């Protein structure tokens, strides 16, 4: 399966003066946008995409980079286990983001 290479990082991430995108140490994470968060993916993308981040970024950073208002993310899981928003992401991580859920 081919996944979209998310470009938002390249537009939004801070860069050192004179540094090019290719020189920033980065990691790629698979992001799964559950529920209606799917609409924050690029059009036609579905709910899975790969996002490249600078190393050391957290789940909270990832949410900001994708551009999801924080109140619409109730929690995230890394590699199938719920983690806190300050969880640092590593290359190859799969990050699942969930909207608030109600009922049962």
């Amino acid at each position, binding site marked *: 399966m081919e996944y979209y290479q998310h470009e938002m990082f390249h537009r939004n991430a801070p860069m050192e003066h004179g540094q090019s995108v290719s020189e920033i140490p980065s990691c790629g994470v698979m992001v799964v946008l*559950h*529920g*209606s*968060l*799917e*609409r924050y993916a690029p059009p036609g993308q579905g709910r899975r995409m790969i996002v490249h981040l600078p190393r050391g970024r957290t789940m909270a950073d990832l949410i900001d980079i994708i551009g999801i*208002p924080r109140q*619409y993310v*109730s*929690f995230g*899981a890394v590699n*199938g*286990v*719920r983690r806190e928003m300050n969880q640092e992401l590593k290359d190859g991580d799969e990050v*699942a983001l*969930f*909207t*608030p*859920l*109600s*009922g*049962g």
Partner: protein
Amino acid sequence: MGYAGKVLFIDLTSGTHRTEELNRTWAQLYFGGKGLGVKYFVSMTAPSIDALSPENRVVLMTGPLAGTIAPCSGRLSVTTKSPASGTILECGVGGTVGPEIKFAGYDGIIIEGRANDPVYAVVDDDKVSVHPAGDLWGRGCHDTELMLKDRLGEEFRVISIGQAGENLVPMACLTSELYRQAGRGGVGAVFGSKRLKALCIRGRKPVRVPDMTEFMKVVGELMREDCLTDTNLWARTDGTPLLVEASNSAGILPTKNFQDGVFEGFKTINSESVRSVRQRKNACFACTLACGNYVRSGGAVVEGPEYETLALAGSNCGISDLDAVIRFNAACDDLGLDTISTGNVVAFAMELTERGIHDFGMRFGDIRPYLEVPGLIARREGIGSDLAQGVRYVAEKYGGRNFAMEVKGLEIPGYEPRGAWGMGLAYATSDRGACHMRAWPVADEAYGTLDPFTTEGKAALVIGGQHYNAIKFSLIVCDFWAISMENMARLASAATGRHVTSEELERAGERIYNTTRLFNVRAGFRRAADTLPDRIFKETLKTGRAAGRTYPKEEFERMLSEYYALRGWDEEGVPTPTKLEELEIS
């Protein structure tokens, strides 16, 4: 306004019916749905009765919003005494049957007595009749509904029981529109005890609101600003199967009879898998969220499976084959069985077999016997004659009491309390046994930002949730719209024409919760029944977020005492006279 102004009583013993003016005082205090249904029920019914006796009643009650274009208002509340738990039992069913009752000119229908032979009742606006159902008795819900529609006309809405209800199985449900259930606590068995196979309704009257322009304005604003937002639209994109992965990530997905909170096979029963076999979405009357997933797979068609089915009949039975879960779901729907309790009792039998306590011929993950059990339960054949009685009965007969996953005789739904301690209190203090629909603190604990592994603040959280849901299911607004109390007050005001405040709704929620508690107290329930299975307090989960943690019973008991104190109940959980007087409950 908002109300039809009449309640229909059908007496099956005599085959007669009558109507009464809606009790407007009660409607002001209890609003509709759960609250008003409970008020009518407790005012007429002694708490000590046998749930399967002719003295029990079934109260079907709509709310002031039913039949209007208010989103998510299409559900119907059903109140009776539960043959599973012996408590009061209020449950809800979606689809269109609720609004249809209002269109027929009634706020509610109350079923009394017992027919000599199987019957079905027809409410066609003002014409009410009772007919022999000999040709329907013994048939599943699907056949029954389709045959009645053939006979009466496609416009009729049908609510029926299958073979499980006929055979008085205490986990028998009501089914409407083929795939929607008033599921829990055995309301289907109460229908069966009355020999009532089905109730068919057609209505052609309008539903009026006091000021149409104002009503449309409020509904339009709330639809745009509160309903169709990212907070609620998971229901449309996924529906409840989304909770499989959410719960698994949070370590609270019931697995192998609650031995674990993480299921290794979750990916084949998660929302993505359900979406892969989805044919279309489906919605209740006036619903803009459309949570229903109409799927076809494994030779079966079903609207579902919902999260509770995927959890209790999937991971909790060690079943990761989605086709098998769908077939199990379809069988339960047709036989008229609650998938939560049926899944639980299968899982319990699997563990009893694996531990060598009693051989039910099935172990976790065994698909063939798993698919045979619903039919055996509904017909009370073979192992089904024991399993039909529920987890508590099976534990008392064969053993395994410490891992019999039920509260007050009602089996536990799909949220593991060791990974959400407040949810344990919600189960213990629910008015109908282990139930996830009275308060749902997992939203804050497992899926939100509250610490799930503490009892601090949880008593107040559970009480708030119980009041919120009590009034929400009274207006009636569906669980899946996370509407604020303030916006519910705006809807209630627009529908009834009187100024309703959020404080008034909060107080009505408290009144409703105390009314159900008082019935249960009078039926003999006290603190000792407000507890959880030993497994929750004595065993730890193996994997996931809650792995290795115990849920200390002493902390639970301290939280329970705090809960009683905050409620104005005594140490045994009995509402004090002062509290009852304050809430105008007699």
